[in-house]
C-alpha cells in the first residue's frame, strides 16, 4: 500500500492527507475536507504569534526544571505477564500477535 508519509510537501499550505499519513490515521474523504478547512482556520489564527519579537527568549518545555530521576538498578516486581496481556487485542504464548512484518 502507499504510505502517504513518504510524500513530500509540495507547498507551504497545510496538506491534510500528508499529515494524516504521518499521524497514521486513515481519513474518510469527508473528514479530509472538513479537517483541512478547520485546521486551516486554526493555523491561520495561531499565526498571530509571528507578530511577537522572540529573539533571545529561551523556550519553556516545562514550567519547572525537570531532571531525569534515577533509581538503583535493582530488579523489582512489575506487572505480571498475564495482567499486561489482558487488554491485548490478540495474543498467544505470552506474545502479542500482529500481521506479519517480514516475509520468511
Amino acid at each position, binding site marked *: 500500500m502507499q504510505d502517504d508519509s513518504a510524500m513530500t510537501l509540495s507547498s507551504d499550505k497545510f496538506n491534510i492527507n500528508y499529515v494524516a499519513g504521518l499521524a497514521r490515521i486513515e481519513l474518510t474523504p469527508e473528514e479530509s475536507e*472538513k479537517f483541512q478547512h478547520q485546521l486551516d482556520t*486554526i493555523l491561520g489564527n495561531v499565526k*498571530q504569534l509571528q507578530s511577537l519579537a522572540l529573539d533571545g527568549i529561551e*523556550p519553556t518545555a*516545562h514550567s519547572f526544571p525537570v531532571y531525569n530521576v534515577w533509581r538503583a538498578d535493582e530488579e523489582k516486581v512489575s506487572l505480571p505477564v498475564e495482567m499486561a496481556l489482558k487488554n491485548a487485542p490478540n495474543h498467544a504464548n505470552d506474545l502479542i500477535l500482529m500481521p*506479519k512484518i517480514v516475509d520468511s
Partner: protein
Amino acid sequence: MSLYQETLMSLRQKLLAQEIQPLDILQSLRKRVEKVESHLQAYTHFDWEKAEREAQEADLSKPLGGIPIAIKDAIAVKDQPLTCSSRLLQKFVSPYDATVIKKLRQAGAYPLGRANMDEFAMGSSTENSARGPTKNPWDFDRIPGGSSGGSAACVAADTAIVSLGSDTGGSIRQPAALCGCVGLKPTYGRVSRYGLVAFASSLDQIGPLGKTVEDTALVLEAIAGHDAYDCTSLKEPVVSYADALKKEDLKKLRVGVPKEYFRQGIDSQVETAVKKAIQQLEDLGATLIEISLPHTDYALSSYYIIAPAEASANLARFDGVRYGARVKDGKDVLDVYRRTREAGFGHEVKRRILLGTYVLSSGYYDAYYLRAQKVRTLIRQDFQKAFEQCDVIVTPTSPTAAFRLGEKTEDPLKMYLADVFTIAVNMAGLCGLSVPCGFVEEKGKKLPVGLQLIGKAFDETTLLQVGHAYEQVTSWRKMKPNLL
C-alpha cells in the same frame, strides 16, 4: 436533608459521631443516581457491588474514611473500565491503581463511578464523548463544560459527594464554574500523574471538585505529594490545607486584578457577577491592585500548538497493538495502525493529533512549536512579575455561562475560546481555583458563574483561604439546581 446532599466534611462528622454508617451514604447516593443519572449522563460506569464491599470495610479512623469519590474516566482504578470516553478503549480494564487512587484508599476513601469526559480530555463541553454528552444540571439543554464535565455535573447534581478531574487547559475549573461547584487545579507537580492517561504531559494535573472549598482542601491533602512513579511530581512538603482555612479575614492580602481579563468577549452578566465578587474580597479586608498580564492574548494560540503537539506524541501509543480496540482483517501493520485510529478516535481527537503532528513536522517545528514554547516563557514571566505585586490573582473562570448543546461543535476555534481565561495557569504551571460567585439569567434559567483565583506555584493554601473566606460571606454554594 438527604445524605447525598451533604458535604464531605458534614458526612465525616456524622460518621465519627456514629449517627450514620458508610453504607448509608452509598445507598443514599445510589437512590439519587437512579433518579437523575438517565437525564444527566454524568457517568460512564458503576460497580455498586464492589463499592458496597469497600463501604463496609471502610476504616473510619482515616481522614476520608467511608467517603465515596467519583473518578474521571481517565484515571486508572484497578479492575475497573478505563475508557477516556473513547471508542478505542471501550473494553480496557485497568491493571493497576493510579497513585491518587492508592492515596485516596490509604486515606480511607473509595472510588465510586467513572465520570464522563471529553474523549481523552480534549474538549470544553463533554460533547466529545463516546458515551454521549453530559448535561448541565441547571439546564439539560446546555453543556456542563469540559473536559471533566461528568466530574463537575455529578457534584452539582448531588450524585457524588466529591470527585476527581484532570486539568490541562481548564478542564477542572471551567466545568466547575459552569455547573456551580468548586474545582481546584493544583500546581504542576503537586499531585502525581501516574495512572492518569496522558494528554499533554507538561500541562496535565489531577485535582478535586467538591461542594465547598473545604471539601476540595481535604481531598487535595490526601492526594498531594511526591511519587517515585512520576518524575515530574515535586518534593515540596504537603501542608494541612484544611487547617489553613481557619483564617477567615483577608487583611494584608493583595489581590491582583488583571486588566486583560476584563475586555471584550466576556458576557456582561458574568462580568457583573465577577466584579461584585472582587468587591466582596475588598470588603473582607483585601487590597485590590490592578495588574497587567501583557501576553494574555497569546496564551490561547501557544496552548493550541503545545497541547496538541504533546497529545500527538502521547496518543501514538493507541495503535491497536498492545491494548484497546483493533480493526479486524488488517492486511499489514500500517493498515492496522491507520484503520484502528480512524475507527477508534473521535473528530476532536483526530483534529488535535493532526494539528500536533503538523507543528512538530520537519520544516514547521521552529515556526510553530519552538515559537509557542518561547511565548510560554513570556507568559510565565508575566505571572512572575505580577506576583511581585500581589499574593493572588482574580479573574472570571469562563467568559460565558454554560452554552447550548451543539452550539460550538462545528466550530473548533469558538470552542477553544471557552478556555481563554484558564489556560495561562497551566502554561505557567501555577495553581487555580474556581468558586461559585453568582448566576446569570438566560431565558428564564439560572446558570452558575465561577470566580477564578490564581496562586503562586505551591501556594494552594492562599487560594483555599481566599476561596473559603469568600464562601463564608456568600450563599451561592447553597443554591441547588431544581433537577426533577
